């Protein structure tokens, strides 16, 4: 929006720009500018046209909440949370039945801490109402889960030498989650 246009509109767009990615803000700027111009064309003075345009557009909070609901990072985080118990269940069954524990105990403690951190980050992305926070925590959660899965796969194969039965199933499910994490992280990155 040009500098000559009212401060009310610039302030409104700044609130949106602080939360939303650039392309979305550009689209909203175009829409708000068109709304403002339509009021100017109908003969309203600049300030009154700006007030009417902002009122017609809806509150910034309403728009931010609308975009938070369609945030790809939020949707990917919800899929990851749904998949988590499946992957966890497969690994618990595989490790308990094969009695193969990947890596020494300190490494397993680190894996446990990473898992807790990933779950926390994914919850923030899945439930968060702030667009950028959801994107960044979603990307971090995806990276963490992918690293965790890769460590489990490599650690198990190094210790056991081969994978069969439930271990093979757990490796397959973890590989699928790595692919999902990679796609979700790329989609989320495109929305920053």
């Amino acid at each position, binding site marked *: 929006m040009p500098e000559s246009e009212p401060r009310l509109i610039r302030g409104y767009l700044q609130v949106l720009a602080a939360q939303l990615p650039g*392309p*979305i803000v*550009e*689209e*909203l*700027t*175009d*829409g*708000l*500018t*068109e*709304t403002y111009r339509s009021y100017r064309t109908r003969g309203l003075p600049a300030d009154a046209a700006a007030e009417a345009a902002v009122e*017609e*557009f*809806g*509150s910034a909070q*309403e*728009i931010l909440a*609308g*975009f938070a*609901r*369609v945030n*790809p990072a939020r949707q990917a985080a919800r899929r990851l949370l749904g998949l988590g118990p499946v992957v966890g269940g497969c690994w618990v069954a595989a490790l308990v039945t094969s009695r193969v524990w990947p890596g020494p105990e300190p490494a397993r403690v680190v894996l446990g801490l990473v898992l807790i951190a990933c779950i926390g980050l994914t919850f923030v992305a899945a439930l968060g109402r702030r667009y950028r926070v959801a994107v960044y925590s979603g990307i971090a959660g995806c990276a963490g889960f992918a690293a965790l899965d890769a460590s489990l796969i490599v650690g198990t194969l190094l210790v056991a030498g081969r994978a069969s039965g439930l271990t093979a199933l757990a490796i397959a499910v973890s590989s699928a989650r790595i692919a999902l994490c990679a796609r979700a992280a790329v989609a989320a990155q495109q929305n920053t």
Partner: protein
Amino acid sequence: MRAEELKGHLDAVLLAALEGGPRHGYAVIEALRQSTDGRLDLPTGTIYPALRRLEQAGLIAGTWSVVGGRRRREYRLTPAGIRALSGRRAAWRDFSATVTAALESATRVNTALENAALEDTACPSPNPA
């Protein structure tokens, strides 16, 4: 009509607004106002997340252009969007016909009951005593 009353039908309404050809967000709102004689009163800003959702679902596709020095995103229906709109239209006609039949049937029953009550008042039954 307010946004909350449209809940569940917003996607179909937006798809219908794009049926005539590609439009940007504000043009979609204008098209809806014109097609409903101004009865559809949506906060303009709320349709942008809805357009984004339809794009993620593959029902519409967005492209950027530059108009008056500003970047503008225009949306058009995809083949999946055309099929979805056709399905939503058929479902709406079915739903609308069902609810209309139920409401008008209730009106007819009420009118018949009121007429019967009026007749009873006008011609009271003879006193058995």
